[in-house]
């Protein structure tokens, strides 16, 4: 049962959930889906039957999200699961990520596309290392909003002082972070539904928003139209046909650069720089299937034509000429390492995927690793193993076109791909370009 979202007005909110193993994360999501009436009778019936068979004392809402055989058997969540629900005000996409230490890569994955993170704390246990780890990751990935869900309040008699103490401990840690997200703390009991969708009668001392109300109304600013205009080129549309299109006329010479606008706004007549050459040209057409458009706005997909015959293709980048992008082949970045069988160290080589571009890369230096419980930077052991986070310097086989991750989540992010297994082994966030004295004469052999 999908609430009837108004299709002409409703927006989309991506959020992720993070917590430790028994913080009740799946139960919270089950509760959100259940109380917002997004669960169907046959789903609920199946869950009720499974709960009974497993001997659970109550309807185990966690079974709604744990879909894989191994998860149901072990009562844990293994992989990021995506869930959907809608209210008349908004449509929501949830990336439900497991809490185990070894699955940090899933939290990073869920966080990379999230506007908001719900971080769960068990009211009985308070702030633990996992809480700090998740908060650090949310700030590292630059998630704008964090909901600190102090869960299982029913097990501490809905005691305000327990909640206040957790909040104080949490803020003591969070205030030490570089990019502190906006934090909204909410005391709740996901099991019983207190302060999730309905306001709790048990905690009259709490006057802030209940969770769903907050999710429905929180303002998200990600990559708005005021940012610098960026269009990574995905594909070149060339019909090579003498047919006349009803909207575009003769198609023989049509050459459109197809892509999704990462940020900013392009308009017809705008002077642009087209990379890799960086040559100047002018936008002559902005097309969609619906026909000619006057402007291209963030997150939407277009085919763009320019005045001059400029050589670019997949991996290229179109930017407004007054808003140049960094072009370089050496930069510093924060990375999170995902591989369990391999390590990253100086001289390690990878395929680097950035926007629609792919180049070869080599680690020229490991600058430091971060102890994410203490936030201390350490240079003691410069080899990255699973879930390590730190700062490295990379050199690429060809220049890439980027912004810092702080400025732009799309043009500032990349992944590293292992050239033996083809697995994605690291997530990277660019800090800054390195002005290389040898840029002109250095031959990079990778």
């Amino acid at each position, binding site marked *: 049962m999908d609430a009837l979202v108004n*299709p002409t*007005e409703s927006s989309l909110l991506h959020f992720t959930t993070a917590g430790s193993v028994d913080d009740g994360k799946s139960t919270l999501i089950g509760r959100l889906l259940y109380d917002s009436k997004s669960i169907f*009778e046959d789903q609920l019936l199946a869950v009720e039957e499974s709960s009974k068979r497993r001997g659970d004392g109550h309807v185990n809402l966690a079974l709604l999200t744990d879909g894989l055989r191994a998860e149901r058997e072990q009562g844990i969540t*293994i992989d990021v699961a995506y869930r959907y629900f809608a209210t008349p005000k908004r449509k929501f996409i949830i990336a439900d990520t497991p809490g185990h230490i070894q699955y940090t890569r899933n939290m990073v994955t869920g966080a*990379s596309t999230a506007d908001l993170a719900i971080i769960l704390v068990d009211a009985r246990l308070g702030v633990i290392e996992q809480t700090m780890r998740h908060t650090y990751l949310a700030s590292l990935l630059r998630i704008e909003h964090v909901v600190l869900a102090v869960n299982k309040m029913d097990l501490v008699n809905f005691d305000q002082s327990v909640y206040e103490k957790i909040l104080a401990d949490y803020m003591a840690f969070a205030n030490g972070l570089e990019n502190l997200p906006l934090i909204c703390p909410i005391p709740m009991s996901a099991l019983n539904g207190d302060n999730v969708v309905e306001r709790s009668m048990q905690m009259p001392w709490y006057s802030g928003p209940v969770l769903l109300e907050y999710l429905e109304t929180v303002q998200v600013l990600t990559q708005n139209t005021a940012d610098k205009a960026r269009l990574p080129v995905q594909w070149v549309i060339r019909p090579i046909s003498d047919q006349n299109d009803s909207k575009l006329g003769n198609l023989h010479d049509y050459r*459109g650069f197809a892509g999704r606008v990462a940020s900013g706004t392009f308009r017809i007549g705008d002077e642009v720089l087209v990379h890799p050459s960086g040559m100047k040209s002018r936008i002559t057409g902005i097309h969609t299937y619906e026909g000619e458009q006057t402007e291209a706005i963030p997150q939407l997909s277009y085919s763009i034509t320019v005045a001059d015959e400029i050589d670019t293709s997949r991996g290229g980048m179109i930017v407004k000429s007054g808003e140049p992008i960094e072009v370089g082949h050496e930069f510093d970045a924060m990375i999170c390492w995902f591989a369990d069988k391999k390590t990253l160290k100086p001289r390690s080589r990878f395929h680097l995927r950035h926007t629609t571009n792919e180049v070869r890369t080599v680690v020229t230096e490991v600058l430091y690793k971060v102890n994410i419980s203490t936030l201390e930077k350490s240079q003691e052991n410069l080899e990255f193993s699973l879930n390590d986070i730190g700062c490295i310097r990379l050199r690429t086989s060809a220049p890439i076109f980027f912004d810092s991750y702080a400025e732009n989540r799309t043009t500032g992010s990349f992944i590293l791909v292992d050239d033996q297994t083809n697995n*994605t082994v690291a997530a990277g966030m660019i800090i800054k370009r390195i002005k290389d004295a040898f840029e002109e004469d250095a031959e990079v052999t990778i």
Partner: protein
Amino acid sequence: MSAITHLQYLESEAIFILRETAAQFQKPALLFSGGKDSIVMAWLARKAFYPSRLPFPLLHVDTGHNFPEAMTYRDWFVDHIGAQIVVGSVQKCIDEGSVQEEKGINASRNKLQTVALLGAIEEHQYDACLGGGRRDEEKARAKERFFSHRDEFGQWDPKNQRPELWNIFNGRKHFGEHFRVFPLSNWTEMDIWQYIRQENIPLPSLYFSHQRRIIERHGQLLDAETGFIPLLEEEKPKVREMTIRFRTVGDATCTGAVESTASSIDDIVAEVAAARQTERGTRADDKRSETAMEDRKKEGYF
């Protein structure tokens, strides 16, 4: 708050994935069943490459148990969007002996589609198959990636999937491996219907209310008109004419109907909004066990 609506976002995301697929693979194909999800996906593909034609063919895995209305629609639609179509046949696999037909009254060719699909992939050397699967359909699908890696046996390993970060998709693979790509991952059933309404996309008549001879079996309303479902002697007198429509359109032997008078898209949107059962609740193939979908997917199902 972003200035775009959720349907604009979902459309653009799907177009992005479709273009990534064309760019990252040598020889992709779009799996087309004639069901609403694959129709929406093909519709989006036309938008993604406009004013060019689709840079890949549609691939129909034909169980031989088709509703005639779905076939009529398929041929019209393919012509309408100017696409090419390739047909992989389950009947051919049965005739060649590479699969064996299930026996008994609940026999279905649904599982055999996997063999026909993998056969078509091998024969035509497709290295990526675009599917209309959505994560809201089923709990195993909820763990699926946009770019889903399959080993050289076509198998899915749910515990060892590549993480997908931001909008960077890693389609690198070894020879013989392939990918399943799901551009509609983030769509719900309601999104599909609202989009069909917004775009005015014509659909097979099966989705709208009509009269049909129906047999009720295990609480499901199954088609008794095409003759693909064998009836028990005692069931024969129970076949009756009902006013129904289909919420999903797949192989005729496992697609259940719902009683409905919804005869327009607006009626359907209202019905979906009020529905108390998932659309896959009408699918016999998912009812075989708690992890039926996961098990089929591991073997290479869509």
